[in-house]
């Protein structure tokens, strides 16, 4: 009954796109080289050692981390965006709705102010993203017992607070070294991700996407309204906070790894909804796959367009706007 065709197509497409994007870069290699290297690395193909080392350096050490990061982060942002849209019953919500981006930017900037240590920057970004969302949720509970509208308001307040604190950090930052670093981070970049970081982030992100997908039917009911979901036997408060926790965790991980990458979490779920409809148990995994593809594509453009790499956040915005307009044009009849 479940539509399998889009998933099969996306799986094939993602595999191909991953292989192709490993060939893209300053030192040109062909897709045959990637294939030969893959065979050689599992011992099925003989290759001269110096050639093997060159390809290993290019593919595994330079290109694979960012390709894996693009796949994982695209999946994380798109599926958390779709989950937030269901929780808030609003197709215009993005992962930033509860203040996760504001918190992460403040944390990252603070880290750069204290020291340039990359681990500190990432840890602070992650910690502040979670702090900002928790703060928003606490406000929501003080305001209106955690209703949807109270959560939106709590997110706005929390986001504004952390954005203000970001401004303070920017103001105090050294304008020759620290400030440009902060601004650059805010634009998002996959360039400085390392393979072991991707490895750490992969497990929680994949678990998160699977967890969100398993909550799909509960999310469908939840999007019809709290009372209706409860009368259908769904433990509304528990599901809502569990989903918020999972979606926040994976989006905070993404942002702390690569900085701000906008539009993926907003546009991709709409696109996926056009393809498979609104049922979250199908929509969430497909959003993850389309998000992965989208970011892989954006990263390829970021690398290819000019010799100096363009921050990927700028690319996703430039690509996201026309895509969003197109999708809204196609989807508008559903809102009447």
């Amino acid at each position, binding site marked *: 009954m479940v539509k399998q065709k889009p998933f099969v197509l996306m799986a094939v497409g993602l595999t191909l796109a991953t292989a192709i994007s490993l060939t893209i870069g300053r030192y040109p290699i062909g897709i045959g080289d990637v294939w030969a290297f893959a065979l050689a690395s599992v011992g099925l193909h003989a290759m001269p050692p110096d050639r093997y080392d060159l390809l290993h350096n290019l593919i595994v050490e330079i290109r694979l981390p960012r390709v894996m990061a693009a796949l994982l982060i695209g999946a994380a942002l798109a599926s958390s965006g779709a989950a937030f849209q269901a929780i808030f019953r609003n197709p215009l919500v993005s992962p930033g709705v509860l203040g996760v981006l504001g918190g992460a930017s403040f944390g990252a900037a603070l880290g750069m102010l204290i020291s340039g240590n990359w681990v500190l920057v990432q840890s602070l970004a992650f910690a502040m993203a979670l702090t900002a969302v928790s703060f928003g949720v606490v406000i929501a509970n003080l305001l209106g017992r955690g209703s949807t509208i109270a959560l939106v308001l709590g997110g706005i307040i929390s986001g504004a607070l952390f954005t203000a604190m970001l401004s303070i950090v920017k103001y105090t930052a050294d304008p020759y070294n620290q400030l440009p670093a902060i601004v650059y981070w805010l634009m998002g970049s996959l360039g400085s991700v390392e393979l072991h970081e991707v490895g750490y982030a992969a497990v929680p992100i994949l678990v998160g996407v699977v967890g969100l997908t398993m909550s799909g039917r509960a999310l469908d009911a939840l999007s019809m309204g709290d009372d209706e979901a409860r009368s259908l036997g769904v433990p509304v408060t528990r599901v809502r906070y569990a989903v918020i926790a999972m979606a926040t965790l994976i989006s905070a991980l993404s942002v702390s790894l690569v900085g701000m990458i906008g539009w993926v979490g907003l546009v991709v779920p709409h696109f996926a*909804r056009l393809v498979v409809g*609104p*049922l979250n*148990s199908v929509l969430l995994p497909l959003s993850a796959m389309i998000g992965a593809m989208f970011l892989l594509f954006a990263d390829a453009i970021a690398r290819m367009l000019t010799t100096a790499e363009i921050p990927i956040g700028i690319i996703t915005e430039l690509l996201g706007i026309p895509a969003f307009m197109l999708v809204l044009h196609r989807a508008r009849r559903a809102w009447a």
Partner: protein
Amino acid sequence: MKDQRMNGAQGEAPLLLEARDVCFRYAGREVLKRASLGIGAGEIVSLLGANGAGKSTLLRVVLGLAVPSAGEVLTEAVPLQRLSRREIAKRIAYVPQVHAAPFPYTVRDVVLMGRLPDSGAFRSASARDREMVAEVLDRIGIAFLADRVYTEISGGERQLTLIARALAQEPRVLVLDEPMSGLDYGYQAIVADRLRDLAADGRAILMSTHDPHFAMEISSRIALLERGRIEADGTPRHILTVEAIRELYHVDVECFDLPNGHRTFVRVPKRRSRS
């Protein structure tokens, strides 16, 4: 078979839904004051009352969505508080007022949500669930709408969809919030017929309504709710009198008995003071 059920309802069989001296406070105000109401198998009970009388609150309380500050709600002699959300959902189904969904679910998707209590929210729908949905759609007479988008069909079709979803829960009790509001005359008749069928199968139906005519036509009993109190509870002919309508809505009516045993009301226009 049917007669046995009817006798059972009036005899010693436990009531399918019973509110016992339910009180509910909200923001310091007493919204429900010792409200008691019982509904047996095969009964359709209409709840009539002015805006703000506490109808919606009483419905939320009997659905287990609001916890009474005193008193209790029982289904088949089991207090709701002893049941989990899911167990309540298998016994009591809620048909909300017609609304718009934020996402373009199909009618089939919406009705399939009614299978959630049975399978649990974290399991996927089984083939049996899908079969049941098809049966229910057929039974309510909206199989032709199955693949239409819920946000694109008429109010009457949405109301039937929500009733079908409630039925997919296989409940013994249906609670409906103003099932007739916003429906055209034809759909009002269809909904009334479906509700009568569902009651005849041994379910208990409780609904709130603003329409005394509809209440008269369909109900086996009518309860009048005024400022949080059940002021009267009995057969339609007994309850719906000229005095009751004046008391409830502050409207003067004339009452006519119809040959079918029902009663109709015609509003007496107020004389203008200046003319």
